[in-house]
């Protein structure tokens, strides 16, 4: 799992997360929240796109937590 901004400052650039197999994005989100790796309004990106909660996460997928963005 890739992390950015505030979450990266707290938890590092990358964390390993144990999840059931198969797992959907919602399952990943629950596991992250249970570990305290979450921030209000964050979204999960799967292979560089915002995901839906019921998308399946497959081995090898690039998963990232996207806190509310602040570009511009």
């Amino acid at each position: 799992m890739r992390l950015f901004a505030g979450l990266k400052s707290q938890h590092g650039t990358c964390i390993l997360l144990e999840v059931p197999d198969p797992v959907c994005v919602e399952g990943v989100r629950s596991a992250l929240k249970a570990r305290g790796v979450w921030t209000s309004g964050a979204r999960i990106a799967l292979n560089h796109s915002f995901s839906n909660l019921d998308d399946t996460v497959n081995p090898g997928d690039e998963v990232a937590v996207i806190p509310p963005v602040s570009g511009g």
Partner: protein
Amino acid sequence: MIGLTKDPIDPETIRRAVESDELGGLCIFVGEVRSLTSGRETSHLFYEAYEPMATGKMREIAAEASVKWSGKFALVHRVGELKPGDIAVVTAAACPHRNESFEACRFLIERVKADVPIWKKEFGPDGESWVEGETAS
């Protein structure tokens, strides 16, 4: 021109990239680092991007604009350390008429601010902090 850059952004280069004889209206938005944000002084900012996703999103946004309006579009965001007065982002839309150029340029910057994975860390006299979510810039 669509993407991220570590180098200073030149708005004129971006204008030239979108201009064309058939497109009479050109609207450019330039977002610069302010010396004051909500009353707090900023000494500098650091912009971090999730690069492959940010680039992909920016291309997607330009493609969305091309569906909504005919014209040429550009969006460029700088990453790394920036000081007050530095240009952080430029969006540009060249369209046949001015109304579309304003609408499209506004669309581009709003979409960048909402969905492109870029974050800024503010440094000032009170320390440093990551900004999450839109600021009123």
